């Protein structure tokens, strides 16, 4: 026995829960599904049932927050603490808080992302009265366990929860929880449309081009990708490699693509001669995260990690005093972006920054990110 219990438990078996808000990393459907799967881990092995309630108090309130979020136990930004939860009881008792500085994902075990199902299953163990287990492999061990498609509750966790609530008296045979992982299938670009971030986004000839892997989507109106897309980039821009880092339309209408330590220039779909050329000709480092042409000023901003440059396309040289820290002039914009683009919505120009599946709208007149951001890019832009 390595589990610990808090001594607190619910005095009823039909537990209610309420989701107070959602992380912009995932669609609501993905979040609800991960939470349901996480509760099922415990309902499969106990008499407990879990029912979602709306607009009325529930036993367990679930929220995504950053830093200080009103319970006196502030979160610490990306990494470190991922979430916390409270043992059964009134008020905050049972509630589970997730650190929204993390990048939550589902069915992925990428190092830089946190699987919402695995974290939620652990936190709901606390919401039911379990403390941490010193069995390092147990779900209730305090350290994050990456998404495991074959996950099932270990003996220590099972023994712990059943010592509080008893066993599930009518287990259907083979009812032990196995996450219903989607069948592995070749990466379907249509699925990629909603489930992954983009390598680059560019506003070209008044249309939005969104690049991911070897494919791209086109869009004239926010939220309505054109029918018949994605299409392979190679069908348009011969000689261009997949997984580019950045792209933009230059003031003279030429299209610049950047990948790794090289860049390509195209006139429409035809590559200019003698390309690719080395990126250091711009005075840039090995590679960039994003490129942003600033209207007809001939200035182009390049972003990498925590810093950015401003390049003068007419003078063909980097402006003095660069690079600078992003946070110095782009208030609210995160570091390590995946893509950046400007878009005219028929009323005004805005600049948008994308990182993983979140995006931030930057108000150019105020010089800061608008309130209410980040939001989920797939939902707002890709019709997901």
């Amino acid at each position: 026995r390595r589990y610990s219990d808090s001594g607190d438990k619910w005095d009823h078996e039909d537990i209610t829960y309420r989701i107070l808000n959602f992380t912009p990393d995932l669609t609501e459907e993905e979040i609800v599904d991960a939470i349901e799967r996480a509760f099922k881990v415990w309902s499969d092995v106990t008499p407990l049932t879990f029912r979602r309630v709306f607009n009325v108090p529930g036993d367990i309130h679930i929220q995504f927050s950053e830093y200080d979020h009103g319970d006196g136990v502030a979160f610490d930004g990306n990494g470190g603490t991922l979430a916390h939860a409270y043992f059964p009881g009134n008020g905050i008792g049972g509630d589970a808080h997730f650190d929204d500085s993390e990048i939550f994902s589902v069915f992925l075990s990428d190092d830089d992302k946190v699987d919402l199902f695995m974290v939620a299953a652990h936190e709901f163990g606390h919401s039911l009265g379990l403390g941490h287990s010193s069995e390092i492999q147990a779900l209730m061990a305090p350290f994050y366990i990456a998404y495991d498609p074959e996950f099932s509750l270990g003996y220590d966790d099972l023994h712990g929860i059943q010592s509080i609530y008893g066993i599930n008296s009518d287990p259907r045979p083979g009812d032990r929880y196995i996450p219903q992982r989607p069948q592995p299938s070749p990466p379907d670009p249509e699925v990629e449309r909603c489930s992954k971030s983009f390598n680059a986004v560019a506003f070209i000839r008044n249309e939005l081009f969104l690049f991911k892997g070897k494919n791209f989507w086109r869009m004239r109106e926010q939220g309505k990708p054109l029918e018949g897309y994605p299409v392979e980039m190679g069908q348009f821009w011969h000689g261009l490699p997949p997984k580019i880092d950045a792209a933009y339309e230059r003031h003279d209408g030429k299209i610049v693509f950047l990948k790794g330590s090289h860049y390509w220039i195209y006139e429409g779909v035809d590559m200019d001669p003698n390309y690719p050329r080395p990126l250091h000709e711009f005075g840039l480092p090995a590679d960039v995260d994003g490129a942003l042409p600033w209207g007809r000023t001939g200035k182009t901003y390049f972003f990498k990690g925590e810093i950015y440059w401003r390049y003068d396309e007419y003078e063909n040289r980097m402006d003095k005093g660069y690079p600078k820290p992003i946070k110095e002039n782009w208030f609210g914009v995160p570091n390590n972006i995946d893509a950046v683009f400007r878009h005219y919505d028929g009323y005004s120009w805005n600049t948008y920054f994308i990182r993983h599946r979140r995006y931030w709208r930057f108000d150019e007149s105020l010089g800061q990110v608008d309130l209410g951001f980040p939001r989920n890019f797939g939902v707002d832009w890709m019709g997901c």
Partner: protein
Amino acid sequence: APLSEEDAPSEITTGAFAYLSKYGYIRNDNPQASTIRRLEDYHSAIRNFQQFYRLPETGQMDEETSRLMSYPRCGMPDVIQ
């Protein structure tokens, strides 16, 4: 209150002290305790952490112990006061 740099004995890293305190290994019931007392608390807290996770109980902030402390984790204490 977490140790500040100036009053922590040289071998106590404030990050480790804060971690051990946050996750329940140090009963910070007497923030005014003497430095010696804090040093004793610190080493016994490391030993408790090592015992909890079946690491060699050296009482020292060795590499294996500090690596485990660096892993992303749940914010709830390990030791329920």
